[in-house]
Structures are given as structure tokens and as C-alpha cells.
């Protein structure tokens, strides 16, 4: 019995430690001023043939919630490398030029909060946690160099100067147009006593993969607690079968596509000929 309890205790401590370790250890000695519990109404979103986007709810409770505290959540989709190109008019037509590669760009990025972010969070806190569409961490390593500026060594400097800002803004703007990046300053609803809920909209174009939803509790401009929950977006049913076949056995898929076309084209012609 005691051994069972000890195991259970160890498991709980381990889980709590793992949760905190993921966000940096809390100040030593002090008990954490607040704690967050969070969950999603669906932990797996399935893309089937009738998929036209999805809406899920992230809900939870804050222990030690005080008047004046604010909650922000950030949902980040699977990261991929993307290139952003600029359209330049050449001989009268618009041509994509000057590609810049951004590494590990989140394929989906949504932020929701109880109030506009800048009203309750300091600029540096937003930047550090990459909270808000203006603070998404977008790194283009090929255009960066490390320099010493004002006596500080290893300062990351863009070799493009101010132009990199245009590229970053364009990336966020295009993703926002497709519904993949957004910021909802009133997206988190506070119910009472630290209970909260937020709607997360996934557009039809939402990428497949593992998503992370982070919940932050802000007090006096700084996050004092956070919690991460995972969300999986996957193709299911026939959509999954087709997608996996196309990528895992492309030769067989190509053959099937050709045979399907030959049979249906020939079959349809026969049907119309008989009539």
C-alpha cells in the first residue's frame, strides 16, 4: 500500500516537474503564486472529406487568480521552412524575386486574450514568449550575422537592414489572409473565479501535425504561470488513405490514378454509346 502511494506521489511530482520544466523552473523556494489547468474539447481534429475548418474550445481554471490578472493563450501549429519572395515589376510583368528563407515558421498561429495584449503585458514579455502576431518568432538565418554592438557581443543583426521587416510583415499578413494567423484580443472569456474558455478557429487550410496551445497568466506585465496542452490535427478516413498512399507509395498511386482515368473514361463512353 505504502509502495503504491509512493509510486503515485512520484508520478504526480514527475508530471508537475515536467510541466514546469517545459517553461523554465519557477523561482526557487517560493511556492508558485498561481497555477493553471487547461484542456481542449477535442484533442484530435480529424480532417475528413467534409472538412471545412473546425472550431474547438480551450478551457481551464487558474488557481490563485486575482482581480486584474489577464490570460493569454497562443496556439502554434507544426513548424516548416518557408520562403518569402517579393514581386518586382520586370519588363511590365510582376516576377517573384529575392527569396528569403525563414526557418521553422509555425504553420498556424493564433493568439487570444482577455484584453489587447499591449494593455496587460510588457513588450519584452510578449517578445520573449513570442506572443501576438507582431511577435511571432521568424528567423531567417541566411540573412543574419552576429555582431558586437554597443559593447554587447553576439547581437543578431539582419544583413538586409530594415527590409527584413517588410518580409516578416508580409509573411504574417499572407498567413492572416488565409486564416492561419490571427489575434483575438477578446478571444478569452473569463467566466468567474479564474475559470476561462477560448474558441480556437482552424481554417480549411490548416496544416496537419502536432499543435501546442500555451496558456499564460499575466500579472503586472509579466507571465507568472503557464500551461501547455497538445492538439493533433490529422487526416482521417479515405482522405488519410489517399494522402498516405500518394506520399508513401507514389508509384502505385500514379498507376491507380491512370487506371482510374482509363476505366472511367472508357466506361462512360461505352454507357453513352449504348444509349
Amino acid at each position, binding site marked *: 500500500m505504502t509502495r503504491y502511494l509512493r509510486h503515485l506521489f512520484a508520478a504526480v511530482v514527475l508530471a508537475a516537474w515536467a510541466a514546469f520544466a517545459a517553461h523554465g523552473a519557477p523561482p526557487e523556494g517560493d511556492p508558485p503564486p498561481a497555477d493553471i489547468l487547461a484542456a481542449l474539447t477535442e484533442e484530435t481534429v480529424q480532417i475528413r472529406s467534409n472538412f471545412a475548418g473546425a472550431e474547438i474550445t480551450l478551457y481551464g481554471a487558474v488557481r490563485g487568480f486575482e482581480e486584474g490578472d489577464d490570460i493569454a493563450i497562443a496556439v502554434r501549429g507544426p513548424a516548416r521552412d518557408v520562403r518569402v519572395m517579393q514581386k518586382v515589376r520586370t519588363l511590365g510583368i510582376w516576377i517573384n524575386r529575392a527569396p528569403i528563407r525563414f526557418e521553422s515558421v509555425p504553420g498556424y498561429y493564433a493568439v487570444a486574450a482577455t484584453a489587447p495584449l499591449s494593455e496587460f503585458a510588457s513588450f519584452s514579455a510578449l517578445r520573449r514568449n513570442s506572443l501576438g502576431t507582431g511577435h511571432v518568432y521568424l528567423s531567417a538565418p541566411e540573412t543574419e550575422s552576429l555582431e558586437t554592438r554597443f559593447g554587447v557581443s553576439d547581437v543578431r543583426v539582419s544583413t538586409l537592414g530594415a527590409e527584413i521587416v517588410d518580409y516578416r510583415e508580409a509573411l504574417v499578413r*499572407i498567413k492572416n489572409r488565409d486564416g492561419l494567423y490571427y489575434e483575438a484580443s477578446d478571444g478569452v472569456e473569463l467566466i468567474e473565479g479564474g475559470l476561462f474558455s477560448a474558441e480556437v478557429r482552424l481554417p480549411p487550410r490548416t496544416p496537419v501535425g502536432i499543435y501546442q496551445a500555451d496558456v499564460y497568466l499575466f500579472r503586472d506585465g509579466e507571465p507568472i504561470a503557464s500551461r501547455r496542452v497538445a492538439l493533433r490535427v490529422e487526416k482521417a478516413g479515405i482522405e488519410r488513405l489517399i494522402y498516405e498512399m500518394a506520399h508513401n507509395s507514389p508509384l502505385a498511386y500514379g498507376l491507380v490514378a491512370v487506371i482510374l482515368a482509363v476505366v472511367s473514361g472508357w466506361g462512360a463512353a461505352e454507357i453513352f454509346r449504348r444509349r
Partner: protein
Amino acid sequence: MQIYLPIAEISVNLFLLLGLGIGVGFLSGMFGVGGGFLMTPALILIGVPPPVAVSTQANQIVASSVSGALAHFRRKTLDVKMGLVLLVGGVIGSTSGVFLFSLLQRLGQIDLVISLSYVGFLGSIGALMFIESVNAIRVRRKLARGGQMPRRGRRKRNWIDTLPLKTRFPVSGLYMSVIPPIVIGLLVGILVAVMGVGGGFVMVPAMIYMLRMPTNVVVGTSLFQILFVTALTTFLQAAQNQTVDIVLAFLLIVGGVVGAQLGARAGAKVKAEELRAALAIIVLAVCLALAWGLVATPNEFYEIIEAGGQAT
């Protein structure tokens, strides 16, 4: 009713897709053309990524050309030998076209190249067709008023007759070098891979005016070549770029088959020259719309190119 396309990864209205298939099928049945040159731009317009639109369209052309090729084969209005020679070029063209396609995709220039090729080809073909059909209508009116048919000059020897590797094409009644048909097949193969068209609109005039094939075997032979080249292109695009969407292809095939039957019946009631003039106007309109997209100031001055897993 929305349907999610597994490879295009977008959600599209099912009836819009079927309607598009029927509409383009109707035009292709009426005018006797493949319709790929209308379908590919239309798919891009409704949000299908250009690589998926082009590859899936090649798959649809397989279905729309198989019945025609079979019918011509049965009626023996098909020069199999000439078809095979064209196919040799087609295989080389289509294979290099698919690799060119993935290279352009990595460089972020595929949309531009697709649009430019469309504008170039549709512009010149449309203009030629329009001039030709207007002349034909004029000649017919003149004949009706008791005029005389303008006489054609005797065909002269030209540079094509000086090429080596000559062989006999008994069905077409030709004795000529295999180089011109291989080159034509090659160019058409590239068009299939890069533009998602069957290429009949280039091949048929080339066969008539450059190879001087008899008109009764031209359509069958061109369908024969299109069937095999589009089948190969579909296979290669699926294997190399994973851009063939079976669900999208199936819906387009279903719509296309129905539309083509309706179109063929409607086309039988209209005079051929007027039909060609109307088709020329449609071709020129699509060309102008695409050209406008190239020169008009865009709303967004930047574009995101997904690296597609491995970046270069």
C-alpha cells in the same frame, strides 16, 4: 456542400467542381478540343495550387482522350506508326517537363511560367484560329455569291525534306524524316507536364501544316499520342511531385463526360467556321485574363513559397 481535396489540401464546393467539369466538358464536346487550356486556369482561379491543378488536369485528359482514341482505332483513322514516333518525343518531353516543373517549383517561378506559357500559346493559337475562321467564313460567302474557290499553290520542297532518318508512314502516305515528329512530340510532352493541357491545339495544326498528314488521321493520331503522354505525365507527377489529386480528378472526369456528351449534341447544330471563330474568341479571352494577371499591380507584393519538406 463542401468537399476536402486530400492532395490539394483545400475545401471546395462539390457542385462548383462538377459544374466546372460539365461546363468545360460541354465546350470541349462542342468544339472537339481537350479543354485542358480552360480547366487548368479555372482550377487555379478557385484556389487549387497550380502544381496540383496542372498534374490533376493531365489525369483528367487521360479519361477524356481514351474513348476518342479507341473509336479512331476501331475506325482505323489512326496512324499507329506516326503515333509511336510522336510518342518517342512525347516520353522525352514529358519526363524532362516533370523535372523542369519541380525545379521551377523550388525556384518559386512555376506560377509565372504557367501563366506566361498560357498567354503565349493561347494568344498565338487564338489569333491564328480567329484569322483562319474569319477567312473561311468570307470564302464561304463568296462561294455562295457564285465566286471561285481560291487555288492552293503546289507544295514546294522545304527544309523538312532535307532531314535524314527517313522512313515510310504507309497510313499517312508519307515518306519523311522521323526528326520533325519527334521534335513535335517532345514539345507537346513538355506542354503536358508544365501546362496541364493535352496539346492537341498545337499538335493538330503542326501535323497538318508541317508534317502534311492527311486530315482524316490527324485527330485520331493526336488523341493516341495525348492518351499515352498524359498517362505517363500523371504517373511521373505522382511519383516525382505528389501533386495528382485523385478525388479532384474523379470529380472533373464525371463532370467532363456528361458535359462532353451535351456539347457534342449542341455542336452538331452549329456551322464549323462559326464554331471555330467562337472557340478562338474564348481562347483569346482566357489569354487576356491571364495576361492581365501578369501585368496588373497585385494586391499583395509578397508571396510565400512552401518549402515542401526539403528546402534547397
